[in-house]
């Protein structure tokens, strides 16, 4: 076990006490306290909108608390600016790392505190040498002079960590650092966190994934609706306890899979290929079926799905829907044919931030709600009301900007948008990425319900529990090809991981 109880007795690196923060109309945090200990990982857990991000922003000097005290090494202090927080040794590594793509790795690490030579100019030699040393401490071995934008997200995280080391951070905040990482990269991150712990850093780890919380955290703090509802040692708590604290009730099941009678084939895909992204994709999808697509990030799943709806053009391949050959040149034709795709990147490809909820929902269905090209608002509101209520959306009004909703509720609007087109096939790409467990269960329940009503569902997911919990059948993709097909009855996490990583099963003699 990784839990190290002896560190608990030391003085906290930073303490927040009785912090409250309100925004117009909302009390984001009320009277919360949090202590972070050197050499220890504290998991901050809570649904979206529970106040986690507000707390992080207070801790990094972006927001000022309305009341409450911040203590660093037993001295009371304030963080009036982000710079003040950084000087006090608090540094944050965000989900989307805030670094500069056009600068070199070394420049990013030392931005604002680069070593100077005697003329007051930047000492490039020392800069690059120091950067290399810091990268090494962060467990990275790439050249510090390359430009940041040439790195993947995992390596950008390492740069952010090297930056944290360069300012001699005492407190490192990691806000969903694994959200965009592959399996292997996640394990490298875990190793790095262990090294940071050994260095005596206090780490605040924010995550929606319970498996990683139990894997690396020593302590936990749970927020609900802006208040702290529980804290303690991870070793003394179960996953069910945490879920109950988060949602204030027991969640019956996160994976409410229904038994559905699988019908005739609806969609047949044969010989799909693309010059760079994928090749030789063949499968069929049946009525009422949930077909899981598992694979590592970058396995070509999203690219393939987007070619099905005409965003990217495949170089070869054919689709049959209900036995009829289809040619889809753009998303409008896919929608008309009854194939819809709920994209992975909710903010960029899914929701239209800046437009009201009802207009988001009706956008692909306008040809049905309008009359000869003229909008019929009454029809739009009716359609939006029907589908948002089926998804249990929480909003003040349908005219509200979709950007003011929490992530989980935005996702419900996006799914409602696609269902309102009454599709035959719905493709959900990472449908529960980054949303809280309550919304997650709601999305899964709804997916089951859809399949029961005879819709065919393709679910792209990188979360093994989700794939195993929801799929009737699973296709695993690796490097643009199908690397495995599994029926629900024969699914194991190990088989999925092996197929996705390309590890031959027969080599694994000892398991037999």
């Amino acid at each position, binding site marked *: 076990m990784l839990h190290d109880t002896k560190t608990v007795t030391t003085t906290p690196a930073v303490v927040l006490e009785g912090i409250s923060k309100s925004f*117009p109309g909302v009390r984001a945090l009320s009277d919360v306290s949090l202590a972070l200990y050197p050499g220890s990982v504290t998991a901050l857990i809570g649904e979206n909108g529970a106040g986690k991000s507000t707390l992080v922003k207070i801790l990094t000097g972006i927001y000022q608390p309305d009341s409450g005290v911040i203590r660093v090494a037993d001295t009371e202090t304030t963080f009036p600016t982000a710079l003040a927080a950084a000087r006090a040794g608090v540094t944050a590594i965000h989900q989307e790392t805030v670094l500069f793509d056009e600068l070199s790795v070394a420049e990013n690490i030392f931005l604002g505190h680069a070593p100077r030579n005697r003329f007051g100019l930047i000492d490039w030699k020392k800069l690059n040498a120091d950067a290399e040393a810091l990268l090494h401490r962060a467990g990275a071995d790439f050249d510090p002079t390359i430009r940041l934008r040439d790195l993947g997200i995992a390596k950008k995280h390492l740069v952010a960590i090297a930056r944290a080391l360069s300012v001699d951070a005492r407190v490192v905040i990691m806000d969903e650092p694994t959200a965009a990482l592959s399996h292997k990269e996640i394990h490298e991150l875990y190793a790095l966190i262990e090294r940071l712990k050994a260095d005596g850093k206090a780490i605040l780890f924010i995550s929606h994934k319970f498996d990683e919380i139990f894997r690396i955290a020593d302590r936990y703090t749970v927020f609900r609706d802006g208040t702290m509802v529980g804290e303690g040692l991870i070793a003394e708590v179960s996953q069910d306890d945490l879920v109950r604290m988060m949602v204030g009730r027991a969640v019956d099941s996160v994976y409410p899979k229904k038994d559905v009678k699988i019908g005739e084939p609806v969609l047949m895909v044969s010989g799909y290929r693309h010059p760079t992204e994928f090749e030789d994709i063949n499968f069929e999808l049946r009525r009422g079926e949930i077909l899981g697509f598992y694979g590592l990030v970058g396995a070509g799943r999203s690219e393939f799905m987007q070619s099905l709806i005409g965003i990217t053009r495949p170089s070869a391949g054919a689709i049959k829907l209900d036995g009829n050959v289809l040619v889809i040149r*753009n998303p409008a034709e896919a929608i008309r044919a009854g194939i819809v795709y709920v*994209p992975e990147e909710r903010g*960029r490809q899914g929701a239209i931030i800046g437009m009201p909820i009802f*207009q988001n929902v009706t956008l692909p269905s306008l040809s049905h709600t309008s009359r000869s090209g003229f909008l019929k608002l009454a029809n739009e509101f009716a359609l939006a009301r029907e589908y948002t209520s089926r998804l249990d959306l929480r909003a*003040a*009004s349908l*005219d509200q900007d979709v950007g003011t909703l929490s992530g989980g509720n935005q996702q419900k609007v996006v799914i409602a948008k696609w269902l309102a087109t009454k599709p035959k096939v719905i493709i959900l790409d990472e449908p529960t990425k980054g949303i809280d467990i309550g919304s997650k269960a709601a999305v899964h329940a709804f997916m089951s319900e859809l399949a029961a009503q005879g819709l065919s569902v393709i679910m792209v997911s990188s979360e093994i529990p989700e794939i195993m919990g929801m799929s009737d059948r699973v296709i695993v993709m690796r490097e643009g090809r199908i690397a495995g097909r599994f029926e629900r009855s024969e699914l194991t996490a190990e088989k999925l991981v092996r197929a996705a990583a390309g590890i031959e099963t027969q080599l694994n003699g000892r398991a037999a």
Partner: protein
Amino acid sequence: MTHAQLSPRNIPDRLEGRGARLMKSWEALLIVVATVIFLGNSFASPYFLDPWNLSDATFNFTEKAMIAFAMALVIISGEIDLSVASIIALASTAMGYAVQFGFDTPALVAIGLGVGLVCGAVNGLLITGLGLPSIVVTIGTMSLFRGLSFIVLGDQAFTGYPESFAWFGQGYVWWVFSFEFALFVLLAVAYGVLLHKTNFGRAVYAIGNNQTAALFSGVRVGRVKFMLFLLTGLMAGLASICLTSRLGSTRPSIALGWELEVVTMVVLGGVNILGGSGTIPGVVLAALIMGMVTFGFGLLNVPGIVMSIFIGLLLISVIALPILWQRARRRLAH
């Protein structure tokens, strides 16, 4: 995080009525500004309130406003068309050239509109077909279209337009209401309906707010944008007919610098220069305001160069004001 925790079963359609929304809108502010300028002009000059003087004043904005309506849609979609004034010049040159060969009014109108459409199609193809940024393309065609007029005309001018052609810029539909003003009203209504009441208008907003998501949602992004550039081209052609008819001659410097006045009108009308929001009523109000200010300056004998300084300051302040307003509101809210 600001979502209210209401029961999901009864999400209301709207929280605010139409009246409450209007009160807080940019358009309401424009109405106040327009009223103040109107009163100011009435006090400043005894000639302002004369119906014929007011009618004359409308010529200050009608031609620019025609283009501004189409430009509003282009800017809401996140693009811009800086070539409009050069399209006026090229269309006018083409009409003047045709006059030399004895073409009559209907043919001249067709040529003016046709040149506008072709120029719009060139812009549209370069932007949607090749995926080039509209600001670069239309700065290029701005030079190109006016350059063609210069090649044809040099320092000459085309005159000799047929008498019947004069009606577009000088004719009156009824009493003090000119053909141009009638056209302005008609186009205001048409563009208001197009932007606010049709699927096409909704697609324009969707593209301006999030082009990628609009594409994923089945909006034909390329086609819509191409249509928008066709429309600004057509409107520039129409404005060219009116302006040429009103002036009775074509010089290559015709409508020089109008693109900035048109953009100023659109932005003053509350259209976000970054795309995504704005209304046609706002642009109508902005046209009235700019027309009245120009006319007021004229009555007060303010020289043209001061007018151009004023336009520049106006453009900067209407872009800065909403941002400062937002910031002030945020500070008050905290």
